[in-house]
């Protein structure tokens, strides 16, 4: 088990094998590589992607299929292989949610989902080729 500190939510013990490594970080945060997913609110469709390297950095994430049941998983698998995950590896997909100050409405980044390999435990933020998906998709 390793201890993860979150500025906002305190500290958590997580199994080491649940760490996801983004070898190149994500755009905007290239040096922060290790993250874990924390269920802050039981039963919520939103979870926290907490940086293990920086207690002050965390993202709200959600399952994009819950936002759009027709989300193109096949395209994501193909893109994920191009972005360095193992071919055919089972993956978890998440959309980063932006929660602005009210009255701003929460949005999900459906154009650039996070893809995390379940075997490799590697993550990458990919970009879909289909431009009908938006960076700010209103929830």
């Amino acid at each position, binding site marked *: 088990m390793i201890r993860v500190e979150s500025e*906002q939510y305190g500290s958590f013990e997580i199994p080491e094998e649940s760490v996801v490594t983004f*070898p*190149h970080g*994500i*755009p*905007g*945060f290239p040096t922060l590589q290790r993250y874990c997913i924390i269920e*802050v*609110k039981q039963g*919520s*469709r*939103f979870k926290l992607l907490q940086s293990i390297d920086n207690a002050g*950095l*965390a*993202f*709200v994430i959600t399952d994009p299929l819950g936002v759009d049941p027709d989300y193109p998983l096949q395209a994501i698998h193909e893109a994920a*292989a*191009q*972005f*360095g995950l193992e071919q055919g590896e089972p993956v978890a997909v998440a959309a*980063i*949610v*932006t*929660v*602005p*100050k*009210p009255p701003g409405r*929460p949005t999900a*980044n459906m*154009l*650039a989902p996070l893809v995390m390999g379940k075997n490799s435990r590697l993550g*990458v*933020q*990919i*970009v879909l080729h289909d431009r009908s998906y938006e*960076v*700010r998709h209103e*929830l």
Partner: protein
Amino acid sequence: MLTFTRKQGEVIRIGDDIRVTIKEIRGRKVRVMIEAPREIPIYREELYLQIETENARAAQVDGDPFERLD
């Protein structure tokens, strides 16, 4: 920084394992092929900047976002 002039079909190699090939030049558009190790993410610049901006916005949260969701 380096600036090159290349013809169609010519290649630029970056380090040992990145190759950039000028596939086609047609009018004001250039088609480029990039061969790089799989672990190097490649983005179109304008999309990279858009995602970078949105990631920075998403990382800026005041208060508990979970109270404002669901």
